């Protein structure tokens, strides 16, 4: 499986995502620069975390209008798997591939810590490997200042009815997200945006290896 890791100016989890994807047997990840016009030939596209364009205007706003976005839209429309993590999630909502928006954490501070997650839908190409696991056993790290997911009530109903809510914070809600949302897919199910960082949970020495399953699911 060939994976693109898009690099925007100010991305800073691009390297982590590149390492994590290449760590999985059967995945070859490559960097793709934000000015590129094509994503042809990639089986999956990874949009990394960080502070693209320094979070100017709104987190993800400028990256969502960068040259590569047309290619990303085309790829998503044709069913290619797209995974946006943290700032990647913000970019995917800003460009309209995912509904809703992410705004400032309710506590107003940046939060970096491990959270417990419930996998609300294991029937997605990203989460099939989580079948059979006790929900609270998925432990991933969050690190963001603007992860507070917001949408109107119609959108929320649609998300719930279609099973688009994939990850929810379990126990306490760190950022005020509506319905404890930590990650959602588009209607077709091939685009996932999530605030927690699976690429930071690839081996026990990192504190958790629960993120591996997500990349393995994507591959399979």
């Amino acid at each position, binding site marked *: 499986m060939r994976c693109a890791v898009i690099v925007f100016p100010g991305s800073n989890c691009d390297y982590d995502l590149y390492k994590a994807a290449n760590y999985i047997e059967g995945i070859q990840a490559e960097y793709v620069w934000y000015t590129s016009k094509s994503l042809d030939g990639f089986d999956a596209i990874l949009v990394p975390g960080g502070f693209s364009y320094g979070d100017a*205007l*709104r987190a993800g*706003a*400028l990256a969502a*209008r960068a040259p590569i976005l047309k290619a990303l839209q085309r790829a998503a429309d044709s069913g290619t798997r797209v995974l946006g993590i943290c700032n990647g999630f913000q970019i995917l*909502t*800003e460009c309209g591939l995912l*509904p*809703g*928006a992410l*705004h*400032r*954490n*309710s*506590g*107003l501070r940046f939060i970096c810590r491990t959270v417990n997650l419930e996998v609300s839908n294991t029937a997605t190409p990203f989460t099939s490997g989580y079948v059979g696991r006790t929900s609270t056993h998925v432990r991933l790290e969050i690190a963001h200042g603007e992860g*507070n997911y*917001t*949408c*109107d009530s119609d959108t929320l109903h649609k998300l719930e009815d279609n099973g688009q809510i994939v990850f929810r914070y379990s126990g306490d809600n760190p950022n*005020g997200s509506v319905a404890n949302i930590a990650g959602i897919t588009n209607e077709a199910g091939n685009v996932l945006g999530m605030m927690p960082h699976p690429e930071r949970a690839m081996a026990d020495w990192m504190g958790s290896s629960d993120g591996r399953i997500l990349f393995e699911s994507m591959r399979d």
Partner: protein
Amino acid sequence: MLKGIVTVSLKQDVLDPQGQAVLHSLQTLGFPEAQNVRIGKSIEVWLEESDSQKAESRLKEMCEALLVNSVIEDYSFEIVED
């Protein structure tokens, strides 16, 4: 030269935690009459354009293309001589 001044605010039904925090501080600082605070931002755009109607329609396009996230934000603007 014309200048567009765009005022961006959070939609009324979107929670504004920053505004709530400022409200709380104002009240503890002895301003009990402060009843609500909402924080937005102001964006100034200088335009190489003399026709204010044209400027207005272009500025609207800019707001919709980039400056404002219509999922959570509202906006208004004015055009002034600079």
